């Protein structure tokens, strides 16, 4: 089997051109491995080889971001590599940003796996951790001996298309993707050890850093309900009998839009719930209990509201990812706006 072809990006210092005084040099391509590339070659063994190394001044890259990205991208393209690696940049800020920028561009433009490495506090880490995989390294080149084997191992997994383990197993900076793995100890023991550290005032590492919530301010109140069009949106899983869209009972992959023109009442013959998070008996007996079509229709007839919107939108909230819910909500909101809906009754179960 032939070896995977790798292109490596390094800065002027690791390219042995010079220090800060040579940071202005434009990108140049050299054949084969250079500097840290030699150590990578050793670690790749028979699996992969560095066919070309791009050496570039940190100042030149950062001061000419667009031109530099384009130039380096072209140099990579010429080699048609299977894998692109950059750095490691340790705590060198401009080098880190260059590594992140070019890895992101190569990944997007060429669709090949990319990998870089840097110190967790490198500004490039914060900028690119959710876009490209970054192996966590020491803050100086003294950490090269540990960084290269870790990067080489992960790079080979990427190029072979193998499953990537969790950040703690593979040694990359958390990239915002939650991945399962089997720890050495059971959860209760990990909790006790974490608690003992917390009590003693020692540093401890949470397994799940808390996210920050976005808060949406409510719309101003409707002044005249008698002219308002009211729609129903639910995460309670109410669907026409038989669940025509086959919305899942948990972790829903879709939502449904259902027409209720002329429907005055939801009955056990016509509607049911797809929701798997509760005893469905009462929802199935009378789906109005989850989405109040009967009452809103009555209000419409009495003139208390202008109109009940002709469609209702329904998904299952049970175990459904927030990202999925956001996506459905954005699509539903566009539909509601296009129909000039004034207000929505949102129900959940």
């Amino acid at each position, binding site marked *: 089997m032939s070896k995977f072809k790798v292109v490596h990006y390094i800065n002027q210092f690791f390219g042995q051109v010079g220090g800060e005084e040579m940071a202005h040099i434009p990108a140049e391509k050299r054949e084969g491995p250079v500097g840290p590339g030699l150590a990578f070659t050793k670690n790749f063994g028979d699996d992969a080889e560095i066919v070309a190394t791009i050496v570039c001044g940190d100042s030149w890259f950062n001061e000419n971001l667009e031109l530099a990205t384009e130039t380096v991208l072209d140099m990579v393209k010429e080699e048609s590599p299977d894998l692109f690696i950059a750095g490691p940049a340790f705590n060198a800020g401009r080098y880190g940003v260059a590594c992140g920028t070019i890895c992101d561009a190569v990944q997007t433009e060429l669709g090949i796996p990319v990998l870089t490495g840097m110190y967790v506090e490198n500004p490039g880490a914060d900028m690119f951790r959710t876009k490209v995989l970054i192996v966590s390294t020491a803050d100086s080149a003294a950490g090269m001996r540990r960084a290269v084997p870790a990067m080489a191992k992960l790079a080979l997994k990427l190029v072979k298309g193998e499953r990537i383990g969790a950040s703690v197993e593979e040694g990359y900076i958390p990239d915002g993707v*939650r991945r399962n793995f*089997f720890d050495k100890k059971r*959860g209760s023991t990990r909790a*006790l050890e974490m608690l003992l550290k917390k*009590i003693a005032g020692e540093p401890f590492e949470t397994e799940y850093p808390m996210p920050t919530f976005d808060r949406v301010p409510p719309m101003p109140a409707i002044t005249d309900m008698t002219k308002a069009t009211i729609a129903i949106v639910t995460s309670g899983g109410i669907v026409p009998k038989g669940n025509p869209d086959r919305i899942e009972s948990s972790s829903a992959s879709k939502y449904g839009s259902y027409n209720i023109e002329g429907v005055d009442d939801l009955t056990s013959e016509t509607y049911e719930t797809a929701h*798997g998070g509760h005893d469905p*008996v009462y929802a199935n007996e009378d789906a109005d209990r989850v989405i109040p079509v009967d009452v809103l229709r009555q209000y419409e007839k009495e003139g208390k509201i202008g109109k009940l919107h002709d469609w209702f939108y329904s998904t299952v909230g049970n175990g459904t990812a927030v*990202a999925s819910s956001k996506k459905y909500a954005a699509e539903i909101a566009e539909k509601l706006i296009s129909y000039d809906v004034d207000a929505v009754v949102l129900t959940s179960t």
Partner: protein
Amino acid sequence: MKLEVGYIDIKGIRFGDYNAVEDGILIVNPEPLLEPVLEDPLIKSAHFEIATPGESIRITPVKDVIEPRVKVEGGGGVFPGMVSKVDTVGSGKTHVLRGMAVVTAGPIVGFQEGIIDMTGIGADYTPFSKLHNLVLVMEPVEDFKQHEYEAAARLAGLRTAAAIGELARELVPDETVVYETPTIAETFKEEWKDLPRVGYVMMLQSQGLLHDTYVYGVDAKRTLSTLISATEVMDGAIVSGNCVSACDKNTTYHHQNNPVIHDLLAVHGKKINFVGTIITNENVYLDDKIRSSDWTSKMARYLSLDAAIITQEGFGNPDTDLIMNCTKLEKQGIKTVIITDEYAGQDGKSQSLADADELANAVVTGGNANEVVVLPPLDRVIGTLDYVDTVAGGHAGSLRPDGSIEAELQIITGSTNEMGFNRMSAR
């Protein structure tokens, strides 16, 4: 309270014409065990099957997993208020058939029951693949109310486990461990005064509509937060009546073998002063959530805790209770670690919990329940594959023509347990 637990190791189960445990083998004569089960008018049929670790067997839909135990000395009997009459348990001597379980299977609602694979990748995710399982497969009569049938199936499982446990009454245990919990006065003794006062806050699923837990026979959603001894829990004072997603449901087996309780007791008097266990519910109404978490924090303060571990059951709605319990303790200066699991989407990129707070800065996770797994086809199915596509974690087409199953980890019983029963985690 002081409880001596004698463990009798079970190395196999086989059918026979009498019921007994002989040389570590459970011999099962089905007829006398099934008789009381079939007396229930809601249960149409019932039979036993045996599943051994490593066998090519898939058990589904799984309702509950129960460890057979028997009270040999001391007050009360196992599962007080459910199987035995209400009487305080947790003292004296209890015998345990270790290494086996009674598993109840068959459809309840067809939504929330799980899968136990005895071999293959699925077996890695569930602790119950390592047990010799006596599976009680039941079918309901036609035209039943799900919550009534749930109660019937729950009782059938507990009664069967108690009957099997009874076989261990006269046996000599392979190992005996003494567990002792202190009175409040004892926790202040001189010897322990430099140890941190640690409590355990155990959240019980009580959302209702088939999401229920029972304490001494009382439905937990009708309770206020209260104290319970760790040894009472070992005697089956808390049982599962849950049909929440299989992955993070605390089965009765989890309660009987609560890993937090065991880990805290193991270092009690050495690294910590394990003061007590608070149980609190997870009701759906906001007033209930506020009241229960207020009560929990009042009790934690009354016990003068320095720190606590908080465990959850279920996800979504109870995430609110979890964060309330955590923040209310933290605001009183009681340091917390919470154990939960995650619903970060199949791609792992979504927010993991439905609620969050920066005070919850010490989290242990049982893993992302949305992660997709492909379970290989297995030779034998105990129960039925009819519900695989509709069970939480499944989707239309989960069950493939070759018998393999592509589904989220949610579908596997006990896979992301929030008592910290497993080694699985996520980053």
